[in-house]
């Protein structure tokens, strides 16, 4: 089989179009990287709706305690725990990861490097199927006796290990199995991304001709692969503690609960960068396209990201400053944590330098990309307070922490995703999106987002602890001013959720009746814009695969008449 494929690559009719599955199976059983990307994208969006609904329910309970939440009813303390736990887990493991890494990675990597598919299409399909299984296991965990897991997404033992403590004996086991399956799915996907980028680039594409977003997704996959292993081992140990009664995390039996915190955060902190890097890559590509300028310092940008990735393995204990860690050790982790802001700041300056002097078009994707940079800076700067062990002892486990990481994760998972989605929508669906509706959706998302989390910063500095079901039981946290801030946050959330309807309406309307998209609507240089919109199976005709002659960001080059110079155009 392999030999015939070498001699006649695909022929005129690729064999898997002929013998491939038909009908509905074409969508469920496809090995095409674009179809798998769409599966990841829509599964991730579906989970985002569930995660958003959870946020709505518990924000209502926090702002108006005891109210019967429309669409849910009274929130009991146990349900509240399950809601916050699964909101966090879903948004990180089942929204940010599948959409930013798997969906965009699958969609753009083969197209941007001029390949017809991933190197292992069937492993790619297997990766999605395992991911789908993890989704089903997680969804099933909500309906078992006791309800979904209620031990927080960080799952610290003994709370997560002992059924009498978390009150969700079955839910916690199913949650853990779902997380392990999800890790396996992304390990398989990651190996595919890394190998594809290393081995399957178009002829002529050197390392520094690779579009930035491809680099970012692959570096993120490597970070994920190198950080998740210890947590896989740790999760197996926790599973045994829960189900067969071992004592890995039980000090009374020679175990150690802090061990889980180390294993979890050794993965958990690099995980932030695992989802951050694809968002940065998307942003950088969009900014270069809509500023019509060559990326400022491509190599330097790449090196800063690699430095960030390496440093991210040495900062994990800043999550454990109040866990009884030796203060001398806390100093070391304070220094490494603050050091990481140097390459990230460098990166932001390089993005600003790219914008400087460009002829900027404020299209919808560009607005999202700029908002990502602006909002992420707020998330980064507030992180400095938490990275310093002295300040963290006061702020730990308050809403300040919560607002901080939402100021990083929201730009990453939501703003970054919308940036990429609106940018590649013409390629994915062959139709142009409505720009006015896109801008209404943009402002209707970004303004309420700030109005949700700025009050939470203030509340956190005022000492409002996380993980409290009803603040009326805590007189010092139940003042009228604090309730007003909580209500501002909740009402802003309602406004933001309402504006998401504009997005869904825009998607459906543009997909059904939008103007047909040309091959290259943004006049961009990278290879995906040389394929049809949407690209057929195999992306290009097998005998006319693209060749690469230059880097991806040759905008406004003095030697050519147009202000862009596609990568595949011979000099």
């Amino acid at each position, binding site marked *: *089989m*392999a030999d015939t*494929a*070498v001699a006649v*690559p*695909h022929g005129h009719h*690729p*064999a*898997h179009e002929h*013998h491939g599955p038909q009908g509905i199976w074409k969508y469920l059983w496809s*090995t095409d990287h674009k179809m798998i990307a769409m599966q990841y994208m829509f599964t991730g969006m579906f989970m985002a709706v569930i995660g958003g609904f959870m946020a709505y329910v518990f924000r209502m309970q926090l702002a108006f305690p005891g109210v019967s939440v429309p669409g849910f009813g009274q929130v009991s303390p146990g349900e509240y725990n399950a809601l916050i736990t699964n909101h966090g887990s879903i948004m990180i493991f089942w929204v940010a990861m599948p959409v930013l890494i798997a969906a965009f990675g699958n969609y753009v990597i*083969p197209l941007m490097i001029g*390949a*017809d*598919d*991933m*190197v*292992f*299409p*069937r492993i790619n399909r297997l990766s999605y199927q395992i991911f789908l299984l993890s989704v089903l296991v997680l969804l099933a965990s909500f309906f078992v006796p006791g309800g979904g897991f209620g031990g927080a997404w960080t799952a610290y033992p003994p709370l997560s290990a002992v059924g009498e403590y978390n009150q969700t004996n079955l839910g916690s086991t199913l949650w853990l199995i779902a997380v392990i399956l999800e890790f396996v799915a992304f*390990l398989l996907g*990651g*190996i*595919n991304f*890394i*190998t*594809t980028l*290393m*081995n*399957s*680039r178009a002829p002529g*594409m050197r390392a520094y001709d690779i579009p930035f977003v491809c680099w970012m997704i692959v570096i993120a996959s490597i970070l994920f*692969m*190198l*950080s*998740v*292993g*210890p*947590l*896989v*081992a*740790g999760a*197996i*140990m926790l599973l*045994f503690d829960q189900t*067969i*009664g*071992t*004592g*890995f995390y039980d000090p009374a*039996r*020679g*175990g*150690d609960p802090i*061990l889980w915190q180390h*294993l979890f955060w*050794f993965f958990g902190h690099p995980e932030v960068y695992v989802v951050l890097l694809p968002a940065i890559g998307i942003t950088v590509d969009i900014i270069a396209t809509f500023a019509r300028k060559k990326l400022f310092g491509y190599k330097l940008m790449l090196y800063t990201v690699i430095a960030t990735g390496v440093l991210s393995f040495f900062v994990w204990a800043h999550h454990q400053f109040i866990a009884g860690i030796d203060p001398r050790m806390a100093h070391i982790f304070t220094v490494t944590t603050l050091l990481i802001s140097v390459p990230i700041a460098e990166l932001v300056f390089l993005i600003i330098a790219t914008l400087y002097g460009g002829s900027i078009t404020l299209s919808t994707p560009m607005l999202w990309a700029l908002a990502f940079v602006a909002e992420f800076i707020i998330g980064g700067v507030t992180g400095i307070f938490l990275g310093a062990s002295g300040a963290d002892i006061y702020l730990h486990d308050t809403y300040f922490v919560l607002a901080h990481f939402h100021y990083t994760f929201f730009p990453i998972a939501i703003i970054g995703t919308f940036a990429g989605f609106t940018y590649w929508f013409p390629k994915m669906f062959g139709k142009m999106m409505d720009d006015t509706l896109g801008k209404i959706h943009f402002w209707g998302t970004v303004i309420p987002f700030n109005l949700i989390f700025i009050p939470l910063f203030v509340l956190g500095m005022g000492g409002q602890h996380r993980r409290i079901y009803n603040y009326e039981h805590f007189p010092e946290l139940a003042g009228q001013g604090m309730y007003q801030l909580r209500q501002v946050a909740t009402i802003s959330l309602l406004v933001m959720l309402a504006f998401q309807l504009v997005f869904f309406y825009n998607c459906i309307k543009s997909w059904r009746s939008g103007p047909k998209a040309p091959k290259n609507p943004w006049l961009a240089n990278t290879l995906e814009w040389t394929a049809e919109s949407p690209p057929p199976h*195999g992306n290009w005709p*097998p005998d006319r*695969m693209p060749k690469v002659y230059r880097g991806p960001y040759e905008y406004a080059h003095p030697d050519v008449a147009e202000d862009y110079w596609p990568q595949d155009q011979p000099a």
Partner: protein
Amino acid sequence: MSFAKPQATLRSVTGIPTGRLAIWWVLASEVVIFGGLLGSYLMHRIGHPEWADAAVHTNVWIGAFNTFVLLTSSFTAVLAHQAAETGDGKKAAKLLMLTIGGALTFLIVKSAEWTMEISHGYTITANTFWSFYYTAAGLHAMHVIAGAIIMGFVAFDAYRGRELQRVELIGIYWHFVDVVWIFLFPLLYIAK
């Protein structure tokens, strides 16, 4: 099901065949999984000198025999690779079957050993040393089982002269399974 490999699979920009490149990344991810588990075990072991009392009850001779079996099976895997390089798929398949035989011997000895230990009361919940013992060796045994099954498929294809490059890939994986055991044996059996 027929499946035409895309051009992407057949390209090799790095000069390393795609399959070999991927298998090294698989091993990288495996190294950190076992690394995390063994690192946790080591930290605990250093903090709990009394675990030596439990470790006394592991049987060094059975462990040594299994080490010998696994090393031998790695040797036949190398010979299978050599045969595949020369294009002799039938010989490669036979040598792979010998390797699977090694894997089965390993697993049979292991289950007899575990049966003996469990019947003496040294179960996975006896104490945390035994928890680590069964978890680490169990995770390793899962890799032995997975490797043996995949090797069966590779041997089936190799016997018909198909996908001979996979003989090398499963061999690389098999050496890794071997190396993990080389770490487990002293940590769980020899250290008293």
